[in-house]
Structure formats: structure tokens, C-alpha cells
């Protein structure tokens, strides 16, 4: 018997329901109003009164409306066909909705139930299996999509039968397992999992030991992010958060990319599904959309579903990680999610924490970041979820609760700076304030020194040092004037400008410069550091400025040229002449 209830109070999307039976925290219910069923989630229970947040507009809802509880939490539907889909925060397929406007209470199936997939069995009768073990696989685009023992299965099972190779739809029973009590359990290609619970089913979660390439110099060279690592990008509006995130999504070295547009602009999502199908994944040569899932809950869509969207996205990533794949989750922006929490906390009249955010904000954020990570599966293979979130600090001030809580949880910090953006120095990642804690990991240092070149990490630190010295010099020049400082200050300042213009800055809209592979990053950093090692002396600071401006100009032309092309070497030659 399902628990039922009656609406007794409404403030915006917070609805109070008087219930006639047991309900649980985060349980899903449906409120019927004017013949439309609207999904809602329990967020607080007080005696017989449950407070539920409605995932839809509550216009027209009235006291006395009937409510039916489902006895389950919000779940994601997992199976072949998730990739290249465009979902809302509750995993409704937006592409199969007919109306131009979103209709209240319209829920669509996340998976195509008719489409058939070429299935190949991996397990055989008699095998002992447990949750997340692979029973078979289908080809989803070019990716081997594993059909697994559902994550919710406890203990070990014996495989009774597995379907022979062939084309089946997702609802076909592809295996029958026998549990400890001897009962047979059918398994299809589809399983469900509550989004707010982390998917386990792996052997261990070791420390990350390699980096994930993004093709963005200021990340890969200066502050690399680990495969299975976490990072976040805070920045005031207009500093290029979204452009940077899209660059990572286009170029990131991952098998699966899930983008959660959480409370952001709809046109940015449109940009993704307009451009991605045309773009080619630089690592596999396949269409980008084939490896991408978009979860989009834009800022005008119901607030409660905003919170759900990041969890849905993470669950999909964890699902693919269990297949031994490298996944990248990008969430833009986690501040909107925090604001959704604030709106609900406010309506429930809870005592507020800093800036009226709920007091457990920090715990919620770190719990979410902890779901990322590299794992070793039960069969010894590796899978990873790398997570990069953006944060939109109010007023661009990093001393606010969401930024501070995220800083505690994420290992990489890419601070976008207003003054760099004002000077069009993109990506506006602050060179000194940003950091990657992975550069302190001996495993990662080893990895970089082996795969990029010997002594690489020391070079990176040297480049950071040049920038730091340059900033000090610039401050002195500002205080004392061009003539008031020794020539070495000017030289130091211009060396840091060299690193800034050639390594830190990158033209995200230029077809060549936007993607810079690691080998090219190595070449350019070596070149720039070689120049910086030289001692320069000039008659006056005007000459110094002119020399470096010319040098920077030639090096920029190199960045715009195809790597190792004739043009590239020609500019390299003029650089060599300048510094000879």
C-alpha cells in the first residue's frame, strides 16, 4: 500500500502534505492538480506533516490536492543510449518532447526502449558474480558499454544463463542470476539507482597517479588536473568561466563527458548541442556528441530540479566509471545549486548560516566532490570520474560560503580574475592564486617527469617563479616609476609578460591555438624558459619594452601556426634571431 497525503500549505514550490502513513526523507511523491501529476521530493518530516519540494511550477495547486508517495528516492535510469542524450535535471529526455514550451507533468523516458543493441556476452553460466560485475557488452557508438550486475544487488550470485550474441532492445533479459537462497533473478540492460547515493561496486579508490590532458596550457602545464581528480573554477561573471569549461569539454582526454548545465543560460546549452555534433574529438576522431551527455536544468527551469541535476549527472558518470572508462563531469555552476538549497532552506524557515545559506552547505559540497575519483574495479581495471565545477561568487568576492566550502573539497583551484579579463588576457586564470595540489603528489610528479620530459615539474615551478618576480617588479615600477628602478626590474617584468602572453594566454576561439597538445606545451615552455634564462641588458627601458614586444609578437605567431609547420619554424627562426 502506498502512503497517501493531502496538500495543506503552499509557499512557492515548498508544499506541506499531511500524510496517512510512513514516508522517508528524500522519498518521491506525485501531487495531482487539475489532472496533472507533478513530481516532488520529501525534504523534511514533522509529525504527520511532510514538507516536499515540487520539481514543477506550483501555480494552481490548492490545499486538498491529493498526493501519492512512491516508496523510492529520485532515481536515474541507467543503460545503453545515455550518451548523446539531452536530459533535464530529472533525466527526462528533452529531445522527445513535442511542444516548444515545457509542459508541466510531462515526463519522458530517458532511454529508447525500441532501439536494438549488438550484445556480446562476457560472463558464462556458472560464474560467480557480484554487483557491478560485467555480464556482457554492447557497442554504444565506439564505446564498449558493459551490461553489469545491478549495483543494488547484495552478496554474490551465480550466473544461470546469459543470452547469446545478438541484437536486443534494452528491456530484453540478457542474463538470469541465482541468488544465495536459490531464487532466479532476471537482469536486463537497464537498471535504476538513487542519484543521491554514490555507486560503489569497485575494489579500491587509490590516489590519482596521472593527469588528464585538456589542451589548455594554463591547466596542463601550470596547474594540471589528475585523472579522477577534482577542480573548480570560481570567477565573477564575464571572466570566461563558460568558455573555459567548454574548451575542457571539447578537448578533455576522457571517454565520456557529462555536462551539467545547472541553473545557467539556456543559450549556452544550445551552443553545446549545436556545435558538438559538428566537432571532432581530437583523441578519437569521432564526433564529440557521441561521448557527451548533457543534463540541462537552465536558470528558468524549476529550482528544485536544479539540485537534482548535478546528482543525476554524477550518477551517470559513476555508471560509466564502473565500465572501466574515463569520465569527466563538468558542472556549471555549483553556486546555482547552492542557491537552490538556500531558497528551500529559507522557505522552510530554517535558521540560516552565512549569507543565508543552509548551515550544512559545506558538508553537502564536500560529500558531492568525494564522489569523483579514480577506482580499481573488481576485475582490476581502472575507471575514473574527474570533476570540475564552476562557482559564481556573489560580487566576484571569493570570501563567500560556496567558494570557501568548495576550496576545502576540490584539489585544483582555477581562480578567474576580473582584471585579467578586463585586459582580455584569456583564459583569465590567475597565475599565482591558482593551484593544483596534484603537483605535490609524488605519483603525479613522477608521471609528468616520465611522460613529458625529465625535470618537467621543476620547469613549471620555475615558470611560476618568473611570473611572481615579474609581479613584484611591476609593483616596484608602479611605485618608483620607470626611471626609478634598475634595468633588471624591467627585464624581470618583461620576462613574466613573456610567460603570460605565450604560456598562460591562449586564444580559445582560434582553431589552432585553442587546442595545445602536451608535446607542443613542452616545446613552448622549454623555448620560453630558455629565453628567460638569458641575461639581457638594454640602454633604457624603452628599448627593453620594444625588444620584448617584438619577441612576444613572434612567439604569438608561433602559437597561431600549426605545430611543426613551415610557418611555425619560420617564426621560430625569427625568435632565434631576435635573441641571438
Amino acid at each position, binding site marked *: 500500500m502506498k502512503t497517501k497525503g493531502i496538500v*495543506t*500549505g*503552499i*509557499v*512557492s514550490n515548498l508544499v*506541506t502534505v499531511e500524510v496517512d502513513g510512513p514516508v522517508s526523507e528524500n522519498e518521491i511523491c506525485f501531487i495531482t492538480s487539475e489532472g496533472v501529476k507533478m513530481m516532488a521530493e520529501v525534504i523534511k518530516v514533522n509529525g504527520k506533516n511532510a514538507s516536499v519540494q515540487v520539481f514543477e*511550477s506550483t*501555480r*494552481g*495547486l*490548492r*490545499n*486538498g490536492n491529493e498526493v501519492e508517495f512512491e516508496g523510492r528516492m529520485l532515481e536515474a535510469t541507467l543503460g545503453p543510449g545515455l550518451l548523446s542524450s539531452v536530459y533535464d535535471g530529472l533525466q527526462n529526455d*528533452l*529531445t522527445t*518532447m513535442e*511542444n*516548444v*514550451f*515545457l509542459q*508541466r507533468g510531462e515526463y519522458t523516458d530517458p532511454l529508447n526502449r525500441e532501439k536494438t543493441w549488438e550484445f556480446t556476452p562476457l560472463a558464462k553460466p556458472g560464474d560467480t558474480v557480484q554487483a557491478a560485475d560485467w555480464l556482457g557488452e554492447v557497442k554504444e557508438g565506439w564505446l564498449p558499454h558493459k551490461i553489469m550486475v545491478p549495483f543494488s544487488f547484495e552478496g554474490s550470485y551465480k550466473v544461470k544463463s546469459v543470452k547469446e550474441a545478438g541484437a536486443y532492445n534494452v528491456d530484453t533479459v540478457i542474463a538470469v542470476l541465482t541468488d544465495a537462497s536459490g531464487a532466479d533473478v532476471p537482469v536486463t540492460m537497464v537498471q535504476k539507482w538513487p542519484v543521491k547515493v554514490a555507486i560503489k561496486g569497485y575494489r579500491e579508490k587509490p590516489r590519482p597517479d596521472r593527469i588528464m590532458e585538456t589542451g589548455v596550457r594554463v591547466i596542463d602545464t601550470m596547474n594540471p588536473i589528475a585523472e579522477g581528480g577534482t577542480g573548480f573554477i570560481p570567477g565573477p*561573471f*564575464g571572466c570566461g568561466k*563558460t568558455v573555459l569549461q567548454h574548451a575542457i569539454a571539447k578537448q578533455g582526454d576522457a571517454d565520456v563527458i557529462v555536462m551539467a548545465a545547472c541553473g545557467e*543560460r*539556456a*543559450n549556452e*546549452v544550445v*551552443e553545446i*548541442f549545436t556545435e558538438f555534433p559538428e566537432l571532432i574529438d581530437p583523441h578519437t576522431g569521432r564526433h564529440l556528441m557521441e561521448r557527451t551527455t548533457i543534463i*540541462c536544468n*537552465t*536558470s*528558468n527551469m524549476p*529550482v528544485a530540479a536544479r539540485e537534482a541535476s548535478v546528482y543525476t549527472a554524477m550518477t551517470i558518470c559513476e555508471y560509466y566509471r564502473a565500465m572501466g572508462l574515463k569520465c569527466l563531469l563538468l558542472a556549471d*555552476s555549483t553556486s*546555482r545549486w547552492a*542557491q537552490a538549497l*538556500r*531558497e528551500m532552506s*529559507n*522557505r522552510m524557515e530554517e535558521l*540560516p548560516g552565512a*549569507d*543565508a545559506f543552509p548551515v550544512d552547505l559545506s558538508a553537502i559540497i564536500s560529500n558531492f566532490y568525494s564522489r569523483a575519483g579514480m577506482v580499481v574495479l573488481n576485475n582490476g581495471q581502472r575507471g575514473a570520474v574527474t570533476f570540475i565545477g564552476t562557482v*559564481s561568487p556573489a*560580487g566576484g568576492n571569493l570570501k563567500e560560503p560556496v567558494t570557501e566550502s568548495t576550496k576545502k573539497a576540490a584539489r585544483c583551484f582555477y581562480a578567474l580574475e576580473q582584471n585579467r579579463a*578586463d585586459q*582580455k588576457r584569456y583564459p583569465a586564470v590567475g597565475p599565482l592564486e591558482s593551484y593544483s595540489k596534484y603537483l605535490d603528489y609524488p605519483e603525479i610528479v613522477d608521471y609528468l617527469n616520465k611522460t613529458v620530459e625529465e625535470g618537467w615539474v621543476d620547469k613549471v615551478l620555475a615558470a611560476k617563479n618568473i611570473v611572481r618576480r615579474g609581479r613584484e617588479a611591476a609593483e616596484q615600477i*608602479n611605485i618608483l*616609476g*620607470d*626611471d*626609478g628602478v634598475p634595468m633588471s626590474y624591467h627585464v624581470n617584468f618583461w620576462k613574466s609578460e613573456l610567460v603570460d602572453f605565450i604560456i598562460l594566454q591562449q586564444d580559445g*576561439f582560434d582553431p589552432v591555438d585553442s587546442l595545445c597538445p602536451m608535446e607542443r606545451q613542452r616545446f613552448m615552455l622549454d623555448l620560453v624558459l630558455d629565453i628567460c634564462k638569458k641575461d639581457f641588458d638594454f640602454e633604457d*627601458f*624603452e628599448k627593453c*619594452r620594444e625588444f620584448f*614586444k617584438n619577441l612576444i609578437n613572434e612567439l604569438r605567431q608561433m602559437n*597561431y601556426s600549426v605545430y611543426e609547420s613551415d610557418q611555425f619554424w619560420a617564426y621560430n627562426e625569427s625568435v632565434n634571431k631576435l635573441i641571438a
Partner: protein
Amino acid sequence: MANKAYQRVYTKLEGITKATVSLRANGVSNDELAVVGGKLAQVVRTKGDLVTLQIFSGTEGIPTNAEVTFLGEPPTLKVSDQLSGRFFDAYGHPIDGGPEIDGEVRQIGGPSVNPYKRRQPSQLIPTGIAGIDLNNTLVSGQKIPFFADPDQPYNQVMADVALRADVDKIILGGMGLSNDDYLFFRNSFEAAGALDKIICFINTTENPPVERLLVPDMALTAAEYFAVDKNEKVLVLLTDMTLYADALSIVSNRMDQIPSKDSMPGSLYSDLAKIYEKAVQLPTEGSITIIAVTTLNDGDITHAIPDNTGYITEGQLFLRADTDTGKVIIDPFRSLSRLKQLVQNKKTREDHSQVMNASVRLYADAQNAKTKLENGFDLSDYDLRCLAYAKDYARELLAIDVNISITEMLDTAWKLFGKYFSPAETGIKQALIDKYWKA
């Protein structure tokens, strides 16, 4: 608003604040309209049988025994072609002396467009103002506000932009407009002979502030009618969104909600997003473009209203008085159009984005030189050239009184580069230098 026979009338108010009243009533639906003592009101909260209503025109003079009638539906607007050329108040009633509108009744503040049904905006909206067209190109389906101090001529600039833009309808939502500004819009639309494509929803400072909350939704419901049903290109002007947000904070304050930053309601972001996200390029030719005004307090963009707006809109246009030239300019540093790359170099000449970046970078160098000058240091030759360039750049390109084509803007920029700099100093791609450099 005539009472209907079967409607129940309540006559006992339990509580009254400046903006809300509460009473015991049954069968009330969320967001429903009601009439309280002859004033229009809307249900904002129910708790058991205790219903809280927000009174749009304020509660002054409402007695505890006022008659309360529930109307059974949220606010609506009648839409049809008859809207064209008309002026309405915040409730959608004509204020121009003309007849009421006949048309289909639509609820305002309706559902959002399915993001998947949107198309990528790709049509350039030229305005003739180089600070916009060259540096911050506008695209149909975009939403962008002017950030301006109250003393800036933002309404004039907005009227210029609206009248130069090639659109089918211009819908003005005026919130807390001074009567003078209202008449200014009216006169300039009339003078331009554009009245037939104008629709105005006006709340002036003489009207109660809470009424303003209806204006954007009214304007956008009309816009959706023309864009979705008629496949027209619609430009919506909203001025001043700061006064709209102030009205939001009044209501939330009266409802005892815990304020977040700058005493704004915690839902400010969502409230503003609901309005701005109505901007859309539809798969048909229809589109809604929103140009708004957010007035600032002494240029402070960290205040919750401009800050949240900036995170929602696709850029912002920052008006500033330039002390060197004595003109109002569009600040190239703080202004941004996020959609500009969708049209730059595609709908405009190939050198557009590089020229834009170079000219702004050199202008930034001029600002550094200015700082040096103010700190009493000697200026280098380069500094002096930058300063001279900055003056020309502000006068010939950034000033809001410029009205030239984009190609002319690009040529002007190349002329200034050639006059003051060497090709290397501009940092522009060699291929473009070879083609466009004017020595």
C-alpha cells in the same frame, strides 16, 4: 473584475502589512488573483486555511472587514494583433484612451521553452554604435542589460538602439519610469514614425511599486505571442530592472523571509532568470531579444542586483562618462556581449575579432599610462602614443553618439592603429596586417 454570482465573498482579514493581507479561506489555488477591497491581489502563501495575499497597489486604506473575492486564475493578458501601437498599465489595461483589446486570454509568466527546441542565435542586430557593434556585438535572441548610474542617459541610448534595430515589434516594459521618461519614449517612438510596431506596459513612479512585478511578465507574454504565434522578431526593452528587484524585496520582506545579500530575497537569481530567459531564438524565424536597464549605485556592480543580473544575462553594456572627451562612452573593459563570437567574422568582416581585441588592449595600455601620469612619472613615447590613441578611440568609436556601419568602424580602427602604432605593437595576426594595415 466584476464579481460573479457563485463566488464566495470573505469579509474578515486576520492580518495586514504594507504589502500583504491574510485571511482564512478554503479552496484557494496558488498564484490565483483576488480582489481585496477593490484592489487586485495575488495568493502567495497558504498554510492550512490561512491565505496570504500580496496587494499590488499597497494596503493603504484596506479595513479588516474589506470584501475579498477570489478570481480563480492567475494574472492574464488578452493577446491579439490589436496590441500593436498601444500603451497599457501593469494590469494590461489601456492608458492611451483607446478601447480594450479583444483577443485570446493567456496566463502571464507561463512555462519555459524546452532548451532543445531553441536555436543558436545567429542574426546580427546592428545599432550603429561602435561601442556595441564593434566591441559587444548584439545578436537576436540575446538578453543584455545596460549597467548605468542613474545620471547616465540610458533610456535615450536604449530608444536609439530600439529604433535602429531591424525588428518587427518593440515592446517596452517600463517599471518606475518617471513621467518625463515615459513621455520621452512616447515622443521618440512617435517622432520615428514607429508607433505601429510599439507596445508599451508602463508603471510610472506615480503607481504603486508592487504593481511593477507584473510588468515584465505582461511584456513578455505579449512578446511570446508575436514571436511564437506570428514568427516575428521581437525586441523587449525593460527599464529599470533595479526598481523591479526592489519591489521583490519589499514583498519578501513583508512575508518575513530571511533576506540574503543586500536585503534581497534569496530567490533573486531565479526570479530574474525567469524573466531574462524568455529571450529566445525559435526554430522558426521568431525571436525575443531583451535589452534591459539595471541602474547602479555609483558604478557598484557587486551589489546583488547587478551581480545576479550579470550571471544571468549574456553580457552587459556599461555606460560611463569619459573625462578625456566629455562624452558618454560604452566602457570597453566592463562591457561584454557573450554571443558576439556567433556573428563576428561570420556576419562581419574577417578582421573583426582581432581588431576589437587589439583596440581594447591598446586602450588598456593607455589607462596604465594615465595611472603613471597621475602618479607623477615621466611617460615613455609609447605611453604618449597610447594616450593620444585613447582620445581618438573614445571619440570616434566608443562614444554613444556614433552612428556608422561596422565596416566603417573596422576601417576607423585600422586608421587609428596606423596613425599611432607599429604593426607588431597591435599583436594582430600577420595575415590580417598584410591585408588591412593603413600606414
